[in-house]
């Protein structure tokens, strides 16, 4: 069967009409992974037995008339989501042989709907990176150009969706890790508001920033997955339930600070074109200012490593993970260099003598960044800009200088600092993929997705 360009919606229709069964659909994707993943290297683990078992169950559910939009639809998870009985590595040697003892809440929710889990996708080790080159196992390639990176850290998920090795995938986003790889691979990546989706069972990176979300073929699919995974969870105390009012307002803010030096000319041209297209659709375009934009990345590179240094303290090799000869040896031997660097950076900025100058200062600057957005959203419904300042870069291109790599997150990190929902949608182009970044107001994802869908349709 032909699976290219299937979406959740179209595959659901096919299953519902009896054009194919979930077992047939699942086998087609497993076949595709077998043919294609040798080249792309998106998957760390393919969970073939689990997928076929789930597909059979899904077909039973469909027969019984218990079908939801996601029943029988094959998907993939970033390898930092726990699936009971399957390996969960976070693309780290430290967890190379770790078997998850329970399901993440998101996994459990999708399982109840009869979703089919094809496997676990590659990431930068512990989600720390923007290119998937920091995976301890192998580098994933960008399906649109095999010499280039797929972005990161959810690069395996984005590459898998982009190359039709699954219909949708789950990612996690601490500073852009869903949106930037979606942008690089020409697919949709959606980070919901902080607190809308449970992180229980997702390996923590920086807990005040981490949020789970989908990578999909289009905006409608992102909405379907979001509705399935959202909601309060007693195992994640940050989750809240929120009802959203309908809105028909269509005001798009364009921050002048997003169009400055360092933005690739081709990206800029495309984003300006997208703004014109929105204008034609009837959107009111409003010039706005987010004056603290230039401080967001520095703020992020204090807060995220600080929280990571605390979160990764649990990796001692005693309760799980590699155990060779004591805590220091385990960590020294099995953590990669980027992970060590960030743990040490966080330890440094939290240590006595530096706490006020770095960590506390960053928490205050975070307030200023959040206030900028609050002010802007008094005037507009969403904010539009580029997802990444650059086109997908070549493998190895940004290895030397850590700051060159970090700068590719410059537009996405402020969103996590302010806890806002944001989505990257592909600009329509024949060239290398470019992402349009739309930022919404807290807990107003419907409005954001509606405006995103206007372009995506």
């Amino acid at each position: 069967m032909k699976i290219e360009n299937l979406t959740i919606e179209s595959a659901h229709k096919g299953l519902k009409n009896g054009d194919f069964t979930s077992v047939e659909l699942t086998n087609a994707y497993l076949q595709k992974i077998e043919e294609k993943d040798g080249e792309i290297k998106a998957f760390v683990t393919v969970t073939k037995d689990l997928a076929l078992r789930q597909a059979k169950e899904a077909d039973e559910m469909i027969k019984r008339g218990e079908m939801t939009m996601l029943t029988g639809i094959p998907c993939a998870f970033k390898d930092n989501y726990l699936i009971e009985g399957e390996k969960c590595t976070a693309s780290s040697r430290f967890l190379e042989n770790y078997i998850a003892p329970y399901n993440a809440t998101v996994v459990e929710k999708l399982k109840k709907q009869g979703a089919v889990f094809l496997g676990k996708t590659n990431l930068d080790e512990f989600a720390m990176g923007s290119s998937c080159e920091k995976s301890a196992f192998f580098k994933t390639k960008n399906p649109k150009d095999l010499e280039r990176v797929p972005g990161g850290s959810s690069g395996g998920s984005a590459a898998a969706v982009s190359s039709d090795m699954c219909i949708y995938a789950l990612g996690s986003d601490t500073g852009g890790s869903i949106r930037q790889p979606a942008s690089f691979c020409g697919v949709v990546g959606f980070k919901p508001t902080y607190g809308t989706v449970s992180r229980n069972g997702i390996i923590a990176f920086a807990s005040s920033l981490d949020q789970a979300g989908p990578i999909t073929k289009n905006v409608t699919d992102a909405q379907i997955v979001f509705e399935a995974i959202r909601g309060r969870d007693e195992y994640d105390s940050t989750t809240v339930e929120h009802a959203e009012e309908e809105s028909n307002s269509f005001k798009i803010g364009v921050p002048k600070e997003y169009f400055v030096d360092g933005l690739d000319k081709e990206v800029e041209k495309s984003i300006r074109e997208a703004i014109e297209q929105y204008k034609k659709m009837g959107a009111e375009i409003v010039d706005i200012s987010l004056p603290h934009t230039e401080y967001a990345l520095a703020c992020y590179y204090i807060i995220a490593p600080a929280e990571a240094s605390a979160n990764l303290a649990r990796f001692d090799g005693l309760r799980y993970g590699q155990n060779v000869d004591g805590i220091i040896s385990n960590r020294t031997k099995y953590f990669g260099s980027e992970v060590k660097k960030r743990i040490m950076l966080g330890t440094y900025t939290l240590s006595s003598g530096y706490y006020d100058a770095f960590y506390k200062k960053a928490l205050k600057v975070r307030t200023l960044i959040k206030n900028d957005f609050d002010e802007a959203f008094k005037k507009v419904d969403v904010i539009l800009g580029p997802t990444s300042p650059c086109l997908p870069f070549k493998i190895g291109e940004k290895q030397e200088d850590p700051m060159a790599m970090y700068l590719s997150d410059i537009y996405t990190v402020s969103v996590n600092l302010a806890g806002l929902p944001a989505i990257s949608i592909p600009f329509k182009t024949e060239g290398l993929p470019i992402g349009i970044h739309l930022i919404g107001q807290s807990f107003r994802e419907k409005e954001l997705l509606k405006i995103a869908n206007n372009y995506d349709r």
Partner: protein
Amino acid sequence: MISSEEIKNIAKLSYLEINDDEMEEIRNSFSSILEYIKKLQELDTDDIEATPSIIELESVMREDIAKDNNGDLINAFSRSKNNYLEVKKILYNED
């Protein structure tokens, strides 16, 4: 440029060891990141409140009763005895 001694001390606090081969690379990248994050000092934040989290967290209380008691958690331990985690002795008598 941050000194090797300082890096060694931070590594120790982080339960890590940095060998001599890695030292130069770590010092270089640490220094360039520290230089970059110093940018925040340009801002006057004396009257600004800190935002540690976007959501106001409330403590959630529950009865202290185990649920979802999952033996697989114990299977992941590197060493266990009678369903307890077994570790090296860390407290000794003085004599």
